[in-house]
């Protein structure tokens, strides 16, 4: 089921797309295919200050403990109550793969395995048919399963994709961030996924 996550295929639109300090609205796609087996170094996993994990002001009627994902902002908020949340920078689904809804966390997995779906293999025949969980796995260090959907909140071996619309609908955090979030989120946690209003 983890196979729908990560990107299907993205053309190399802009070869030299700047990675940091981009406004979400200016960067829809990062021309970067999956890199199974690639192990990021800790320096790469250190996000630009604008996307790094931090407590922020956040007004909401959702109860503390709720996860609110804002696709357009490229942030995941863990509601703390008292107008506060812990905010994590995320990579989101690319245009056409963005969605909204309310679900609950149904399953948690450390170092999940990855099984690319047949349509993905068709586009990228060089991809492995199955890959054991581990540091080079595109799903990263942890996965939180969103209800009965095919979508996950997971880590990544491509930290430079944080802040961009790159996936097939999953939400990716850096491995240090998903490792921080994981123990704070019990099974049954409410997840609210918001995306930009339609024109």
């Amino acid at each position, binding site marked *: 089921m983890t196979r729908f996550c990560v990107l299907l295929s993205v053309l190399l639109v802009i070869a030299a797309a700047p990675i940091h*300090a*981009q*406004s*979400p*609205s*200016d960067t829809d796609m990062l021309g970067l295919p999956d890199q199974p087996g690639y192990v990021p170094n800790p320096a790469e996993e*250190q996000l*630009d*200050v*604008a*996307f*790094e994990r*931090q*407590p*922020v*002001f*956040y*007004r*909401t009627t959702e109860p503390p403990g709720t996860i*609110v994902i*804002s696709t*357009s*902002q*490229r942030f995941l*908020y863990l509601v703390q109550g008292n*107008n*506060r*949340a812990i*905010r994590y920078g995320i990579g989101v689904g690319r245009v056409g793969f963005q969605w909204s809804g309310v679900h609950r966390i149904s399953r948690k997995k450390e170092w999940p395995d990855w099984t690319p779906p047949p349509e993905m293999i068709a586009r990228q025949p060089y991809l492995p048919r199955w890959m054991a969980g581990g540091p080079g796995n595109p799903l990263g260090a942890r996965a939180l399963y969103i209800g009965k959907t095919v979508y996950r909140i997971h880590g990544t071996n491509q930290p430079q994709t944080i*802040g961009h619309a790159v996936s097939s609908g999953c939400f990716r955090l850096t491995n240090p961030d998903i490792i921080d979030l994981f123990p704070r989120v019990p099974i049954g946690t409410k997840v609210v996924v*918001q995306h*930009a*209003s*339609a*024109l």
Partner: protein
Amino acid sequence: MMLKHGVAALALIAFAATTASAQTLKAVQDRGHLICGVSEGLPGFSAKDDKGQWSGLDVDYCRALAAAIFNDATKVEFVPLSAEARFGALQSKKIDVLSRNSTWTMGRETSLNLIFAAVSYYDGQGFMVRKALKIESALELANKSICTKSGTTSELNLADYFRDNRLTYKVVTFPSADEALKAYDGGRCEALTSDVSQLYALRTELGTPRDHIILPDIISKEPLGPVVRQDDVKWLNIVKWTQFAMVDADEMGVSRRNLDQAMKSQKPSVRRLLGLEGDFGKQLGLTNDWAARILRLVGNYGEVFERNVGTGSKLGIPRGINQLWNKGGIQYAPPIR
């Protein structure tokens, strides 16, 4: 007869009021550019680069106004003003509008004969601490030493906040913000307090900015926004609705990037915003595509925020309290209808 005279007199007054209130817009149009008062240099809000190009949130507000009036965001003359000179320059009509990180207070409206048109940025006093301290709330600052600039409202707010929360602290004051920052950097105190926008700017000057965080707590109200004179309600409306249109566009998801697509929208609210329905622009004294011009040439509020002070800038200020009212913040604009 009495009634007739009365009506005539009323009509005269109404005519006089209309001509008086049309003066600023007409003066700007006749001159061919807007004159906008900004700060002398504040990262993210108004700063001039080595090529003489101004940028920042306050600067983009002026450009938005020029875009609405002239369909050309470059028709602005920026006048850098000190804190002392800013309100006088507006009163004496040296500038058309003041867009210079100025806090909206009652006294400034009642004693200076000025009026704040809208809130373009909700600022407020906060705290910067080292990440290594593992503090996530200002309430955890009990018994800590806090650096600040002396003789400012920051020092007073600090005392109020700790008194209200029945916490003790140690204040260490310095004559300038730079000295307070150096003292904090050197370990003289565990926290530095100032307005949050300034803390983010100061953080970029530290050796390793990411070793420090700005706490989400805000202990004072500093609503910043554009200011005009009280004698021209028509002009006030233009200044006010320029800000509101950018916030409304942000809420509707209409941006510089998708404007062409938005122009084909069938949503009535989007069509009113872009002047495809109604006569709102003309009623403002402009053209009906006034807001579309702002969006094409400058962008919506979120774009302007992220570009200048948010994720697209060195400051990296979270939208936080400046996020839209329905997305976790308090930015709220009345509807265009």
